[in-house]
């Protein structure tokens, strides 16, 4: 009889799930999905040893395990704390967690330049999302913000340290994905900085991935700098035969013009696995040198969450219908609107919604879904 693997039962915000031993609280919560998933600014599942630093993912462990049901004395980083059988975790159900998280968001923002209007990352910045969801409307910080000089890390990458939140993701990437690390953290405390010792070029074939892992606009693609706002460009999945990497990318296009090439990301903003199963890191050649649509085999529009600003403005021919809900509901605003499309995938994948003139019609949808 094959031995059955014992699963651990863990309850997060009153939702119970079974996961394999060795799973972190964060990954268990991601299995549940939705609002119970703590935000993660430094943890990156594809990078060994990442996490534990930003403290946005703090949760309260109300019971350690069935064997030892005592609560943990402090809030713990869910990305670096593994579940135990019978563990009870509180995330959004704990006022202490919400309070601490608000504190962390405030700490992350006090020295941030808040220069979103001129930042290339705006629209796909995790710090923006985090502060919308968990931050306060105003600041209590009344001092000058910390600034650093901008640095060019070689011909392709710009480091704008002033925006950095020191999540260390790029350091782990440089360490684990490229074969020789020339990129790390200098100095300490609030004067720590990401640096390539003495402005050394980052010329490893895979170093461009640091741009993708950076949750903020501290590491940006110089070939894309100020060229466009991400929400004006249209992401499509594409591939090419590459002898260095998987060649599976996302092109950010306007018309036929390729503005930017990145790796493909999942719902947590992490680089997805490629069709071959390993992490879809892409090489510098694919990222920086292949800027013609003819370099690529285009697979189709990328799936972008309706909630992302990037999904805005993708429907050039759209006639905006009148808002009728308020009218129908006697002047009340709707409380909750659910997006069924991204879940049900009712529209036919071969139909590009952005090309449709006006709202979609029944003929645009899968008939077997109707």
């Amino acid at each position, binding site marked *: 009889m094959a031995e059955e693997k014992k699963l651990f039962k863990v309850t997060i915000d009153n939702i119970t799930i079974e996961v394999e031993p060795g799973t972190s609280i964060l990954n268990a919560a991601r299995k549940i999905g939705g609002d119970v998933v703590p935000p993660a600014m430094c943890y990156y599942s594809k990078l060994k040893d990442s996490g534990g630093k*930003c*403290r946005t993912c703090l949760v309260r462990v109300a019971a350690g395990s069935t064997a030892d049901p005592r609560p943990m004395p402090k809030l713990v980083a869910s990305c670096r704390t593994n579940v135990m059988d019978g563990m009870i975790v509180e995330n959004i159900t704990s006022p202490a967690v919400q309070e601490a998280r608000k*504190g*962390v968001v405030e700490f992350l923002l006090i020295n941030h330049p808040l220069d979103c209007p001129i930042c290339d990352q705006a629209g796909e910045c995790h710090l923006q999302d985090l502060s919308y969801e968990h931050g306060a409307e105003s600041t209590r*910080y009344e001092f000058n913000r910390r600034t650093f000089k901008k640095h060019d890390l070689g011909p392709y990458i710009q480091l704008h340290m002033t925006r950095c939140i020191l999540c260390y993701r790029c350091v782990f990437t440089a360490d684990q994905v490229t074969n020789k690390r020339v990129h790390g*953290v200098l*100095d300490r405390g*609030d004067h720590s900085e990401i640096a390539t010792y003495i402005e050394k070029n980052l010329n490893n074939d895979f170093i461009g991935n640091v741009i993708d892992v950076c949750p903020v606009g501290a590491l940006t693609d110089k070939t894309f700098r100020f060229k466009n706002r991400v929400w004006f460009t249209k992401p499509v999945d594409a591939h090419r035969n590459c002898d260095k990497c998987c060649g599976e990318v996302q092109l950010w296009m306007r018309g036929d013009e390729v503005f930017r090439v990145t790796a493909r990301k999942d719902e947590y903003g992490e680089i997805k696995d490629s069709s071959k199963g390993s992490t879809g890191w892409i090489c510098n050649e694919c990222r920086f040198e292949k800027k013609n649509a003819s370099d690529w085999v285009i697979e189709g529009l990328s799936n972008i969450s309706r909630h992302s600003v990037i999904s805005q403005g993708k429907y050039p021919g759209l006639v905006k219908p009148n808002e009728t809900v308020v009218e129908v509901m006697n002047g009340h605003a709707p409380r909750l609107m659910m997006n069924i499309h991204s879940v049900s995938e009712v529209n036919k994948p071969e139909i590009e919604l952005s090309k449709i003139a006006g709202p979609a019609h029944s003929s645009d949808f899968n008939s077997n879904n109707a």
Partner: protein
Amino acid sequence: MGVKLLLEKAHVENIRLYDVYRREGGYRSVEKALKTLSPDQVTEEVKKSGLRGRGGAGFPAGMKWSFLAKPEGVPRYLVCNADESEPGTFKDRYLMEFIPHLLIEGLIVSSYALGSSRTYIYIRGEYAWIVDILEQAIAEAKNNGWLGKNILGTGFDCEIYVQRGAGAYICGEETALLESLEGKRGNPRIKPPFPAVKGLYGCPTVVNNVETLAAVVPIINMGGEEYAKIGVGRSTGTKLISACGNINKPGVYEIDMTISVEEFIYSDEYCGGIRNGKRLKACIPGGSSVPILPANLLLKTAKGETRYMNYESLSDGGFATGSMMGSGGFIVLDEDQCVVKNTYTLARFYRHESCGQCSPCREGTGWMEKILLSIENGKGKMSDIDLLWDIQRKIEGNTICPLGDAAAWPVAAAIRHFRDEFEWHVLNPDKCLTENYGLRHYADPIHVPVA
């Protein structure tokens, strides 16, 4: 005159040299341990002694040793924490500088108990000259057969190496120390795993303070039970206190933890009273990280009982009305000292020493420093005091290592006990630049409600 176990021979001429140290009875504990006790029996003696870690946290040393994982075929390490960088603490320096052989002796016995054949002393970079002293002592010990291969014919091998730090307070935190010792950036590790399971180079490791390891020598010589008879309660043995600030006799004192705080400050055997006949205002009794206490709560607990120089009594009342023994850095402030300025100085230290890994500590320490500076300069607002309180609360407990807590506690305690001095700064923006708030009511007897 209290019992002296560590500094008993500190004033013997040339005790720094091996021959004198040996003549005075040095290295007896190595002979006793290696020849008559098994490693586990040594650990058992340390357990019986009740010795608590002298590096700050006060964790029972014997218990820490017994947690050390012992997988087959994997080396184990003992690392001596000589990074001593906590403001106000300079006792390890004294010990290493004047009786280095006591530490080496303690290290050999402890290495034997833990099975460490390569033992490291990680020493604060600024103690450059002490490295030479220690290396000379190690060489002498080796020449006389106390180190190297097959020590005393028992089959036990041991070498001791000294590694200098590069001037970072954070490298005194045990996991940052291990990172640094491995040649990496001194960032504290995320625990678990604890060093007892995965420490230096991923192997089981014990990290102990200099004084803790030196205390193993008298424990083995006199037996754990005898050692435990000195002191009171769970504060056994003797403790080195480095006293500084506005006192007549700053220096390093060995106490047996039975004396009162008042006696320690005012008796001629110890601090010799407050300098220039001034009055005592406040004291940070255990190094910069522990809560500051006003004079009245320092000498007496909130219950009106005499406060003693030991772990339990100093922490009596918790953080509301007590403090901590910490690392034994005893900082005395007289009536002319400004608590706001003192708190600012400490906040500046923690801001500068944060490793910067976690956001609450990296950003919060700097924020507190800036607010404190503006209050100190008469530019503060009343709301700043509450803001400070809120910031420290959001740092404490939410960081990777205890430096975040250590930065939060002094601010919390200063506001808790000296809030009116902060408010006075806000209300008197000009006066506070030229005058001091002074003693005020901080030494007044506290009304103790009858139970």
